[in-house]
């Protein structure tokens, strides 16, 4: 029985709470008994589900730099309404990944060592620096939204004055570490299966994160404008969809051309566990969504776009998991399947991310359709004419 005026009891809350609690217990077990007793990792398979999750989290958080670059560096101001959701997604994504990384480390108490003990030859060292710096950049980009809510305006002004170099730095850092996750595997040509190993791994990782990041933000804008007003007009959504299609096509061409050039045709044409995994990721994540997105009717339809971007995200997840797990199962002909504790920790952290997202969305102005009429700029918030950093005043230029 539903009573109209009372808040609805959602199914999501008990599920999320259960997952977070189970994840917490699993994490306690992991710290008490060590990695050996609680995970299925081994000397032959030292990286597993959690590393795959890191790739996934960082890739889906790529919207944080693509949208910021498009709106604030390339001045595509009409996309301003999705800047905040993009930054929030990135911020939460990076926080989760940092959490998983710390759980994954054998010595979590030494997590700060890369700060003081450098090795410039290590991709891992570069990634830890990029992650740390970019998380700081994201915190600064996200801070104004929180500060605005509590009406503390002076730090916003301060952040605003450094916003341009900050954003450029953020985009560069993202470019570097998004591709570096692929570079991690450059050193294992003898372990990673030929369908995934290529010297172009960093390039492919970068191209695919662009598509997945934009898809993720489109997906969010579709979910959160249900019933309410649209975050982006249909025309702009269709434009973003077109961009995704172009990126997918680019990825497909580079990947397949490279596979052929490296002589992996035999691997592609024989039916194995690996070729099946390869076709699954290519069809779900690249070919089918590309086929959908080139059709104008799909780009303009809410449901079509929803399906296509969801496919991109799922295919992207498959691609990263295949690179991190499936592709490495060739050596030493050993299979890996994550333990329950590994899975529970991952689910718990995912649930934590979704809960944090919905909590923040409820209490801070994240999803707000842009005002139809241009508002007068608050001089206290924005001292400089351009760019209007994280403030919600579309059509600024016409009003000045």
């Amino acid at each position, binding site marked *: 029985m539903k009573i109209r005026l009372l808040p609805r009891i959602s199914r999501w809350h008990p599920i999320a709470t259960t997952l977070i609690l189970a994840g917490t217990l699993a994490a306690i077990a992991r*710290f008490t*008994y*060590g*990695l*050996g*007793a609680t995970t299925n*990792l*081994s*000397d032959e398979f*030292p990286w597993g589900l959690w590393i795959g999750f890191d790739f996934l989290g960082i890739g889906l958080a790529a919207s944080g730099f693509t949208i910021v*670059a498009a709106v604030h*560096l*390339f*001045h595509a*101001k009409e996309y301003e309404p999705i800047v905040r959701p993009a930054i929030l997604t990135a911020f939460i994504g990076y926080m989760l990944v940092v959490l998983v990384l710390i759980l*994954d*480390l*054998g*010595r*979590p108490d*030494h*997590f700060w*060592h*890369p700060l003081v*003990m*450098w*090795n*410039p*030859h*290590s*991709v*891992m*060292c*570069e*990634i830890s620096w990029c992650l740390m710096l970019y998380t700081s950049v994201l915190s600064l980009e996200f801070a104004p939204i929180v500060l605005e809510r509590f009406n503390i305006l002076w730090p916003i002004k301060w952040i605003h004055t450094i916003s*341009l170099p900050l954003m*450029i730095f953020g*985009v*560069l850092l993202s*470019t*570097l570490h998004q*591709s*570096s996750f692929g*570079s*991690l595997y*450059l*050193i*294992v*040509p*003898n*372990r990673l299966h030929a369908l995934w190993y290529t*010297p172009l791994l*960093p390039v492919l990782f970068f191209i695919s994160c662009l598509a997945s990041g934009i898809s993720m933000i489109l997906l969010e804008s579709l979910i959160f404008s249900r019933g309410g007003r649209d975050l982006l007009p249909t025309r702009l959504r269709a434009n973003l969809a077109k961009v995704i299609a172009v990126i997918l096509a680019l990825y497909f061409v580079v990947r397949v051309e490279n596979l052929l050039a490296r002589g992996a045709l035999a691997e592609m044409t024989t039916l194995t566990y690996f070729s099946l995994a390869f076709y699954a990721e290519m069809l779900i994540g690249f070919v089918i969504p590309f086929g959908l997105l080139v059709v104008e009717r799909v780009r303009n339809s809410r449901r079509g776009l929803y399906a296509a971007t969801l496919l991109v995200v799922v295919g992207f997840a498959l691609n990263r998991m295949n690179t991190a797990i499936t592709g490495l199962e060739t050596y*030493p002909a050993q299979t890996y399947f994550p333990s329950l504790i590994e899975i529970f920790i991952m689910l718990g952290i995912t649930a934590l991310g979704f809960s944090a997202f919905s909590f923040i969305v409820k209490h801070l102005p994240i999803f707000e359709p842009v005002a139809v009429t*241009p508002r007068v700029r608050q001089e206290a918030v924005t001292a400089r004419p*351009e*760019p209007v950093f994280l403030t919600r005043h579309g059509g600024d*230029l*016409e009003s*000045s």
Partner: protein
Amino acid sequence: MLIDLTLCVGCNVCQGACKEENQLPPREEKYLSLTAFTALSKYNDLYIRRMCQHCDVPTCVSVCPVAALSKAEAGPVAYDGEKCIGCRYCLQACPYHVPKYEWSSTKPRIQKCKFCAPRLAKGLPPACAEACPTGATIFGGREELLLEAAHRVSAEPTKYVPRIYGKDDVGGTSMLYLSPVPFEQLGFDSRLGKIPMPMLTMSALSKVPNVLSVGGVMLGGIWWITNRRSEVAAFEASEKKGETPRHEDKP
């Protein structure tokens, strides 16, 4: 060290001496483990000794984010457990699958052959080389061992395959092997090649400074151009607005 497989009789004295030197449980082991830094594996009637190869350009040293692994001038690849953060990239990257991890510990470290670094410092040969009763493992300077190996191969070309494994494999290793059969038959990975593995990553890492400088200038430039363009557009719009009657200007 030079390991001549034709002289090895599989007595396993090397493993015993290694275990004694490193104070490990003395039971015999067939594979490398936390308690066996060297092990003999048998291929038909040949024994091949597995251990850390102490590469000249070590993959593990290059991947370690905190430089917990280091290559000493005298040869040993040393490990500092106090620096290690436990990312296990060395386990993933080592082309010979040498490092073993203390999975059951809550403060895990890696374990592997230390090339008896303390003994070398005292001018002694490694425990395994000293113990070897047949001379299958001998210790010496890399150059002189290479000469010795080349001499052995040319003296008895029918006995050996014409290859000194480790001379330039993955950029050269401190462990050199001579064998009567092709090395691929002994479980050596034939895909490794002669280029040091760290070169594969350096091809990507060396581009980082360029990405930062070129990317920074490019993004700054794009910002400037697009900003200028919208400023001009705004100015032109305001010019136009100036021509239209004032009451239409109000929002």
